[in-house]
């Protein structure tokens, strides 16, 4: 099966007052049609930048190298017009902040219909009918939610539903969800995730779920990568990574989750990975994780490790992966 989206050797650097800083380097992954794929990592590891690269919406001071293939085309070779036809139509994105991601001076109806009118050959009347259907399908029935409402009249969860309606309006092939529930209450979070899951499965879209939350990745994806300081450190099926994580960073991430049935002794504290994520302009020569790793070796500080296969699809970038035997 040909992947719908392929990211090859993607690196992104940013011009800053302190010079050119590389934020993500050599990212590789691919997404099959109908597949649900996750990227997990702490904030600042380059997850969102990866998503923006795919949308070709990087800020003006960013420089990108590598290739992104979408439906058999290298998006760097597309003209601005072709990119516009792709965005919101074949590939679309749900953003993190429902409070600020909607235009405060436009009605929700107008914001949903905009994509429809841009990409589909329909008139205003048809767009209105379709907009109502979309609102219904994201759980905002038109009987209670008029198309003429403004974003400030809705709650955070409702706004995120509008955002989802905008993203799925043209039934894209790939839906990117960048921390779609991070800004929401936990109870609302569950319902939004269910909604995304349901929509993706019903319309056979591919999902690229980006989150710092391992629980969300486990709940919504089939395959995943773990990112740390701009690199992919581990990849594989979600089951593989969850059951037998091999990178010390992934291991640390899992250990940092509190487990309700495990009794913590008075002196024992929840595990946290020692040290801090290195700043993008102060990353070490070797492995980015070397300074925080509990089993660091000489070689880790000299050259960064390449991705190697553990078994099947499960890969890791580490000289001393954790053994589960």
């Amino acid at each position: 099966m040909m992947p719908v989206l392929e990211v090859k050797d993607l690196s992104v650097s940013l011009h800053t007052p302190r010079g050119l800083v590389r934020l993500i380097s050599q990212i590789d992954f691919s997404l099959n049609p109908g597949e649900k794929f996750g990227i997990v990592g702490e904030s600042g590891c380059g997850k969102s930048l990866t998503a923006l690269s795919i949308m070709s919406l990087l800020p003006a001071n960013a420089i990108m190298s590598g290739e992104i293939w979408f439906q058999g085309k290298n998006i760097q070779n597309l003209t601005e017009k072709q990119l516009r036809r792709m965005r919101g139509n074949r590939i679309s994105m749900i953003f993190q902040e429902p409070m600020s991601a909607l235009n405060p001076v436009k009605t929700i109806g107008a914001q949903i219909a905009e994509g429809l009118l841009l990409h589909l050959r329909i008139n205003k009347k048809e767009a209105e009918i379709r907009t109502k259907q979309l609102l219904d399908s994201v759980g905002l029935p038109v009987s209670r939610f008029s198309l003429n409402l403004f974003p400030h009249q809705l709650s955070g969860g409702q706004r995120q539903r509008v955002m989802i309606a905008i993203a799925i309006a043209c039934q894209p092939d790939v839906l990117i969800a960048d921390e779609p529930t991070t800004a929401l209450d936990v109870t609302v979070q569950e319902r939004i995730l269910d909604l995304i899951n349901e929509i993706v499965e019903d319309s056979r879209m591919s999902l690229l779920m980006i989150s710092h939350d391992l629980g969300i990745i486990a709940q919504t994806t089939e395959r995943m990568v773990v990112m740390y300081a701009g690199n992919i450190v581990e990849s594989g099926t979600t089951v593989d990574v969850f059951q037998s994580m091999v990178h010390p960073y992934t291991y640390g991430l899992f250990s940092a989750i509190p487990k309700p049935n495990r009794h913590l002794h008075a002196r024992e504290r929840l595990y946290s990975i020692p040290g801090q994520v290195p700043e993008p302009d102060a990353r070490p020569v070797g492995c980015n994780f070397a300074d925080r790793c509990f089993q660091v070796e000489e070689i880790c500080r000299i050259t960064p490790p390449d991705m190697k296969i553990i078994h099947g699809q499960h890969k890791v970038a580490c000289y001393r992966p954790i053994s589960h035997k």
Partner: protein
Amino acid sequence: MRLFLLKRMISTVLTLIVASVVIFVVLEILPGDPASFMLGIHAEAETLAALRAQLGLNQPLSIRYLEWIGGLLTGDLGNSYTYDVPVAELIRDRIMVSFPLALLAITLSTLIAIPLGVVAASQHNKPLDFLIMGFSQLGIAIPNFWFAMLLTIVFAVTLRWLPAGGFVGWDAGIIPALTSLLLPTVALALPQSAILARVTRSSMLDVLKEDYIRTARAKGVGYWSALWHHALRNAMIPVITIMGLQFSFLLAGTIIIENVFYLPGIGRLIFQAISQRDLIVVRDLVLLLSAAVILINFVVDILYALVDPRLRGFNDG
């Protein structure tokens, strides 16, 4: 929205009343007796007293205030001390010059400033941005009376394209009338547009960083379309604020510009009335200008609400 309008209208009327009281009282306190000014310093005491009685100057303050307001509401503003013609007529003729001038100036300034500001923002830190901001800096630095003289020298004296001053009157036809207002309009508008362009640019730069611009782009909206359709309206609040302030300054600016161009407008009238102690005219003109400023604030409030639904009051789409 209806409640919002009602509230605004009430506060506008209250402000007008307060302004009229302040103007009336201040002009009463000011030294200078209109009667003695009209009759000269050698006037007899009886003649003076007779004139004061005729002008109603010996009545109590409150009665005279109410008579003034009553007159304003019925359109009878009394006669000018110096010109001896009805003040209402005097002002009406002058408004027909000043109001079109102010309106033309603010229109021209907006038409120049907003596109320039938007283009500068879209070209942030690129040559065109620097060019536009350079001109804007120049426009802010130049005083408008000096700019007015410069325009006169170039277009009236040297090139002889346009009249150097004076107003032919609307009876002479729209085109000649507009021609005589052209240089004053430009002299008033350009310095203002320099400031307005700056405000538009910085406001646009703020808005362009917003998440919803990225959302629009992710929908497939093009860069310029996102700029005009998504960013500009959000960027308008500070621009409208400055435009409101500028309109008030424009009224003051016309005093200078009308003198430079010899236009028979409100600005020149107020200048003459003050120097001749024509207190009735001064009082009415000051109230007129204050009322204009208050009304502009009212219009600005309504524009805010039109631009931004969040300012329309709660749950009132």
